[in-house]
């Protein structure tokens, strides 16, 4: 009888561990699926290059496309920048930028210096569209297919490997 009681703490702990583990896998999926297979959200924000020009969902017209969240304060964005340039130069697909919580002048001078891989960049200082997209931070990249539906999301730097593994398959659909 005494022995059975001694197993209790172990049993309770194992249950707790299983619960925690299930959260972990749960959370993992959620990150992937939050917006996947839903329409790209509506927005109305100014263009990075021109404060007076208002951009809406309709302006994202050259589909399929990548929507890339970036900022000058984001170091990892500079890491992926050359790869985005490569996608543009090889005309693989259109890339739209979402400039996130950034300084407009700094952002423009960075694009001037390092090259501009984007069709245009949306200037989202308050992070309004970013909230709708559920953005964690920069960089983050979404794949929007020819019907305007978000198919894939990647948090972090996009490089050759990520492109091959996560995005390339949607291009030829």
């Amino acid at each position, binding site marked *: 009888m*005494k*022995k059975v009681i*001694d*197993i209790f*703490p*172990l049993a309770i*702990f*194992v249950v707790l*561990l299983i*619960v*925690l*583990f*299930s*959260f*972990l896998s*749960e*959370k*993992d999926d*959620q*990150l992937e699926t939050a917006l996947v297979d839903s329409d790209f959200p509506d927005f109305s924000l100014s263009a990075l290059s021109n404060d007076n020009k208002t951009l809406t969902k309709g302006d994202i017209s050259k589909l399929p496309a990548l929507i890339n969240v970036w900022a000058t*304060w*984001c*170091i990892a964005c*500079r*890491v992926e920048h050359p790869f985005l340039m490569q996608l543009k130069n090889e005309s693989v697909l259109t890339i739209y930028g979402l400039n996130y*919580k*950034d*300084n407009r002048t700094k952002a423009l001078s960075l694009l001037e210096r390092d090259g501009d891989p984007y069709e245009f960049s949306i200037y989202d200082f308050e992070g309004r569209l970013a909230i709708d997209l559920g953005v*964690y931070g920069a960089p983050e990249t979404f794949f929007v297919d020819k019907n305007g539906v978000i198919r894939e999301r990647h948090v972090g730097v996009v490089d050759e490997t990520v492109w091959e593994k996560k995005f390339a398959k949607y291009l030829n659909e």
Partner: protein
Amino acid sequence: MIPEIGHIILISHLVLSFMGGILPLAAIYSKNDFLSIPTKKLSVFLFFLILVPFLVLIYSFLIDDFSVAYVSQNSNINLPNYYKLAATWGAHEGSLLLWILAMNGWLIAYMFFNNSKDKDYISTVFSISCQVIFAFSLFTLFTSNPFERILPIPPLSGADLNPSLQDIAFTVHPPLLYFGYSGLMIPFAISVAAMLFSKDTKEWASNSRPWTLMSCSFLTLGIALGSWWAYYELGWGGWWFWDPVENAAFIPWLLSVALFHSLIASENRGVYGKWSILLSIFAFATSLLGTFLVRSGILTSVHAFALDPERGLFILGILAFFIIGSLFIYSIKDFENETTPSYELTSKEFGFLLNNLLLVVLAVSILFGTIFPLIYEAITDGKQISVGAPYFEVILFPFALALGLLQGFALYLSWGTSSSFKFLPRLLIESVSIFVLILIILFILFDNLHLTSFATIFLSSWILMGTLQINKNKNLNYWRFLRKRAAVTFAHSGMAILTLGVAVVSSYSIEKEIILAPDDSVEFGNQTILFKNTEDIMGPNYFSKSATMSFSDGSNISDVLTEKRTYSPSGQLTTEAGIKTEIFQDLYISMGDNLEADIWSFKVQIKPFIRWIWLGALMIAIGSLLAGIKRVRKT
């Protein structure tokens, strides 16, 4: 080159801690002296093998080596040097290094200052600690390497340290907290070794007690500093938010308090041996669990760490290995031969039992409140709720009340036999008089009486009198008092002061949103607040709009500065509150929004007795540290 040296030394730390985790145990169980290693020397060596990588990382910060990814993510050329130092432990990777450093520090201290003469047993404690250290070292190298480089083209400057972490309190808050968390490794290792060697309860309890006390002291300091930091840096004027990360530190604190109390009974009377073992295991488990909750990203809070499910999985693995392992030993161990001395219902033993039950049930309730939102989200398919302050306050109150009542007379109980309760009437009269005195003082200070906090204020006087009177009862002269009772008196009076602070601040605080143009003034409480002017300030890495405000209560006038800072590298905004501290109250003002031209909104608060909360916590920390050190020296 230098970061690579740090990296290589970190790898050798991994290898050596692995050997430290295996060889001593192998030597003991194979009875083969060939395998035995000098554990004392190895503990020192291991410490240096982690100290060097840590110093290398600090060095990389100081010389602005932005090719190191961790440096580029958390520092910036314009960041002042002392914040570059603090940035070393400002995010996940570096804080892990600090954590391992702290564990190694504890291990050295234990190897040199423990009071056991049983060599094999000490080697086992060493070995188990090394296994824990090895697991953390492995975790760091494989999922969170601080020396990872951005090559071939390193960025010219970094993304900057999170602005709200650029603060003096923050430079010391994490180290203290990590010292507390990691210190719980020692009681854990002791409890496992005690089971393996079937140690006598009194013996291992006396071996474990100083380390539990000292870890608890560091936890107390770390939590108090965190609370103080939140108070003036987050700009809300709150001092405890029941944020998941705060809870993650509070739960091991509660368990370590329960543990060192139950160890007193174990050491003196040989009772609760099994219970103390379980508590040691769970105190350590909850400190790991806290790490898991914060760094796996399954809970979101103000303490944002880089989110990475893989890290979560790794910590869960560490947790599973050590806790399942130790609980497994516990479940198969034969405790039958332990004889438990009997005790009466009103004895000191029973007092400790009650104390432990209350603390543990409270800890479990807080743990439940912290992870309940996750469970709810899982079973309702994604609906999110948040269990906030109301739940925790409702839970905390009855437990705090019961614990406080117990604390008031616990010191009068006697071991084993029924206690006499002759002291009760006098204690009651004394605490009622102190209670009335406090109420009169509050009335004089604030022209007001708030009924809601009567119970808590009485509790505080009850604890204070219970603590101070027992010393008079025991007829100790000054030196004997210092030697024998200073620590417990300090800690328990600290609890009384903290309780008083909480009671007063929660019912006597007032706050108001005000809108002012320069040279306008407004009446608030007994203060007149004047908005003098605004000024632009350029800091080293921020631009700030600051407002000079003047508080006047008729006789004293004092100016405070509140700021809205925009940190240039990240563009993040922070609010610096202007705080005027007096003995009995804080005048707290934080800048709101710029409504038009020169007109600003402000939030102004009067927080009476808020400093007493941290004063009380400081006394608890000093008391438990003294108690711990005293017991180390007794050897």
